């Protein structure tokens, strides 16, 4: 009796992974992404965006511009200080961005210039970009890297914990000329605001 029970139990146990596997196959990739099964600090999502492959375009579609994602990790610099440089070059053409970084005195400017040049090379070599100047900075931002902690000695036997900061820098280059942003004058903005107020309707009224 016992052996028969265990035999059936073992068979049941063997079917469980099969059932679970089939269940997971039924779940689409969108549903699986919310499970957070494999988040770790070493996940490099930004670089994986370069591996995305689109289906072939139809002959009458507009040419899809090439996108190049590049990053550098664990730069010995502060993310807040890096943000100012990243904000400066957003929306610039790559040549203008490299020029501005070349003549900026900050430490992060030299590192960012190297990253941009690497990305430009990658674009020409791997991403089928024809002209290396025909690129613009679509996205650029800095993120917090892993910090090291040290002790900072104060008076009277007190101490603080000092963070040795590191940051990441992410940049996305897109082929083409930089998009023209329309500068709205304050008068136009005011006019738009007044128009929005005038367009309001009173619901449930006569």
């Amino acid at each position, binding site marked *: 009796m016992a052996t028969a029970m265990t035999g059936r139990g073992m068979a049941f146990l063997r079917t469980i992974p099969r059932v679970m596997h089939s269940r997971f196959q039924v779940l689409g990739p969108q549903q699986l992404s919310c499970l957070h099964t494999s988040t770790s600090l070493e996940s490099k999502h930004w670089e994986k965006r370069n591996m995305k492959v689109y289906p072939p375009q139809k002959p009458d579609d507009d040419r899809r511009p090439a996108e190049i994602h590049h990053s550098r990790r664990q730069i010995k610099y502060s993310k807040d200080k890096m943000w100012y440089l990243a904000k400066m070059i957003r929306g610039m053409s790559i040549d203008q961005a490299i*020029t501005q970084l070349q003549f*900026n005195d900050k430490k992060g400017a030299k590192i960012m210039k190297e990253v941009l040049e690497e990305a430009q090379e990658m674009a020409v070599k791997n991403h089928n970009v024809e002209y290396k100047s025909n690129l613009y900075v679509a996205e650029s931002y800095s993120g917090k890297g892993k910090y090291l902690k040290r002790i900072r000695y104060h008076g009277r036997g007190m101490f603080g914990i000092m963070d040795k900061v590191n940051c990441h820098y992410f940049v996305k280059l897109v082929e083409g000329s930089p998009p023209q942003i329309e500068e709205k004058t304050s008068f136009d903005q005011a006019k738009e605001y007044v128009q929005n107020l005038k367009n309001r309707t009173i619901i449930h009224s006569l």
Partner: protein
Amino acid sequence: MMNIAALVNSLRCSLLHIESRLLQAAGLTLDRQLAPALAVNGPSLLPQLDREDELEEQQSPEQSPGLLDGILWMAAPKKRRTIEINRTRRRDETNLLKVKTNIEPCPECGHLKQKHIMCGFCYAKVCKETALIRQQMTAMEGGPLRAPTVETVVLYEGETPSELDKDKRIVERARKRPAWFN
């Protein structure tokens, strides 16, 4: 990390205890938990100040004047600055980096330069040549502190010293004269 936090807390508790004991010794305790953030004048809160207390006040400031005075009169923030307020201050137009408009290409080499600053490439070029000239000069002198008391002239291939170069030290360089030198 937990041990350090506990240590810090224990140190802070012990220091507060020491402070309260000092205040008791000085005879100036008003409440048990005197908040250091209150900037209150001492005598106005002690209506029963006797001569003994005055004597003690005269003695106690010598023990710990800076501690008590500093606590009562220091400026301190009242509320934590929210992240929205911090962001608006950090991202204000005046704090953002400005785009430079004084960059132009160098007419000599084509590299980029700022209008009021020499081109970096041309400067490096000049530095290299002057380093070689200086090497030659040190070889001619043979040792330290042997610079001649006359002027020096650098001559390149195919050049003869002119009338003006009669009494000068001549440094010969075995290459043709670079275009930027005179």
